[in-house]
């Protein structure tokens, strides 16, 4: 594949970015979930 570095690099960069965002939001949810009572979690 021509220009494989740019193309694969673009995909890798995208997946690293969205994975980092997902990990961050899950980690924040777990951390805050321990401090908030279940009664205040409207999604449960």
């Amino acid at each position, binding site marked *: 594949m021509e220009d494989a570095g740019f193309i694969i690099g673009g995909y890798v960069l995208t997946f690293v*970015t969205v994975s980092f965002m997902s990990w961050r939001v899950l980690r924040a949810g777990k951390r805050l979930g321990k401090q908030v*009572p279940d009664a205040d979690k409207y999604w449960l």
Partner: protein
Amino acid sequence: MTTTDPTLSPTDSDGARPDTGVGTGTRGTRIIGIATIVAMGWLVAFGLGFSPEDRDQRESVRLLYVHVPTIWIAYLAFIVTAIASGMYFFGKKHALGWDRLAGASAEIGTAFVAVTLVIGAMWGRLTWGVFWQWDARLTTTALLFVTYIGYLAVRRLDGTHEQRARRSAVIGMLAVLEIPLVHWSVRLWRSLHQEATVLGTDGDVSMDGLMLFSLFVGVIAFSLLYLWLVLHRTRVMAMEDLLDDRGLDDALAARRAEGGPVDSGPVNSGPVDGDRMQEGAL
């Protein structure tokens, strides 16, 4: 009342279930999360494997299966921000849930625009020979990105949750007006950027079937990711706001306890920082 029957769920002394300490995940978000991972796998398979190369752009067309869906979903995210901002601002209840949805959606949209700009620069290097040109489409997209960075900065200013919601709702409703400018910039000004291949004004789709399918897979994958992220982020924001309020209540209680009995006479001292910042909440 506590129970000794092991077949019953454990309860605390008030008869209520004890806190589980779970985060923002539910069965629904787990299903969406798995669907997102599967769709992303399909995107890699079709984007990098099954899809043919383009006659003119050659292999660089593969970057467009990420570039185009991310900007479309960013547009969607900013439209959701504007609608949620309007629901907060013009709604009778001024429910903060709308504000949190607006904020979460804008965060994700801004990240997606950043991805669009970086992938677009890579595509530009392969197709045009340069990473960046001060072209109408590129410049208006960069402006859109900076606008929403400003929106997110305003959300972090000091003040009550209501003040945050009011300020950001106004910006959220105005900033969305940039989207038509970005989308039609290639028609309004002479642009190096190509015109729309799928959402053109003539309604024709000038793409090979497998290429169009790869693009469709990308749109599905990033739509699912957006939905998953916005659900989790909105719930995180709800807990942040709750803990913020609880911290304020505790601080006020401590301050009152320090001061002893409250004197009902006139108070001449000016407001302290904490009181001034939170007066809207009281």
